[in-house]
């Protein structure tokens, strides 16, 4: 290979390396960008049709039934329930926007959630419960003890990425020691609603979407 030819190959490889690095940086940025922070209900919302368990902690997972990123969250929930299922009353609420039929919510995510022992799966009609609890991003977990919020956030390390995370570590810490370094974690997932999330100071006063 001639010197000029070598230079051409080197230049080609340098441009290639930069282009690929830029692609990976964009991918990382996307995967590590959490959903917007919203004020999650600090105490169990009175209008909610769900009832908090009296004898153990209640874990709520709000999910968009079509969100591919939430597949990793369901997988993490399965791991969590396998170890700490006896300490939790777990619910997965699949968002069902107005006009969404059964086929919209009955996805592989629904089936995966149903297969997890000890987990109750529900359709959240019109996203009413998500609005009552102040949740706007698919994959958000809210953990309540005696009607008081202990933790809220995601349980994956990135968007659609399995593996341990700050959120999961904090939930485990709360379940095993009763305390955690922080009460929240970033959530990575699709938006539950087309509307901008409602940010309120006190979640007891949240207004369900459609009744705002």
């Amino acid at each position: 290979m001639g010197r000029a030819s070598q230079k051409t190959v080197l230049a080609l490889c340098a441009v290639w390396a930069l282009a690929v690095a830029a692609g990976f940086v964009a991918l990382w940025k996307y995967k590590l960008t959490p959903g917007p922070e919203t004020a999650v209900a600090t105490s169990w919302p009175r209008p909610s049709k769900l009832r908090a368990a009296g004898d153990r902690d209640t874990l709520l997972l709000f999910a968009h039934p079509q969100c591919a990123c939430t597949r990793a969250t369901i997988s993490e929930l399965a791991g969590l329930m396998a170890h700490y299922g006896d300490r939790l009353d777990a619910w997965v609420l699949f968002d069902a926007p107005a006009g969404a039929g059964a086929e919209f919510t009955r996805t592989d995510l629904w089936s995966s959630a149903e297969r997890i022992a000890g987990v109750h799966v529900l359709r959240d009609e019109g996203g009413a419960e998500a609005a009552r609890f102040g949740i706007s991003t698919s994959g958000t977990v809210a953990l309540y003890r005696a009607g008081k919020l202990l933790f809220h956030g995601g349980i994956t390390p990135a968007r659609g990425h399995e593996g341990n995370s700050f959120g999961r570590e904090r939930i485990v810490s709360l379940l095993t020691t009763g305390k955690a370094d922080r009460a929240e974690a970033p959530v990575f997932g699709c938006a539950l609603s087309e509307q901008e999330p409602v940010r309120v100071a006190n979640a007891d006063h949240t207004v369900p979407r459609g009744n705002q």
Partner: protein
Amino acid sequence: MSVAVKAIENTRAALEAIVQRAEERYEKRRQEIFRHTDRLFSRLMIGQWAFAVLLAWVVSPYAWQGMQKTIHLHVWVAVLLGGAITSVPFYLARTRPGEVATRHAIAVGQMLWSALLIHLTGGRIETHFHVFGSLAFLAFYRDWPVIVTGAAVVATDHFLRGILWPESVYGIANPEWWRFLEHAGWVVFCVSFLIMSCRKSDKDMRVMAERGAELEALSENAWRNSSVLDRAAADAAGR
């Protein structure tokens, strides 16, 4: 010049010819292996690209916002970043097969494919086996520096992600400082055996080339001697 000196010079010249022939055979065989492996990887790159696009389209076709959907970034990443990763190794494999730069670019590209597939499958543990499979596949070159290049890409990826996003590498958010040694240890374990295997294969290839050259020289010598005898016999018969 005495007969003895002439004989020694002839022997030396014959030995040099055998050494040169052995070197030529060795280089020819290496080139065959490099080119063949380049071709294999060029096909694999295209296969991985197609697989990644299919995977992204099946597993995560859309991102959602309520009832509104848009094409998921994974699909674009599989098409564009996957295409970018494939492009240079494929181009070099097709236009410059057998060259040093080609196989090192392929090693980089192959390990980048591992990283991309891990992303596209949501960090599944099973996809991490692609890293070790790729390192083993790179050993097809029987050229140990190629494996070092591949391992260096893995190390760089681990180093950067270990700093910026430790959960994606170690599975926990706050890994102990020594945790990277555990991961590096397994890569070094795999790579050291592959390097030993490459060096042994290379040595065997050289021995085979030398034996082949010796056999060729012997057979040529035998053919030359038989030709001389044939000519002598023909002369005798003609007389």
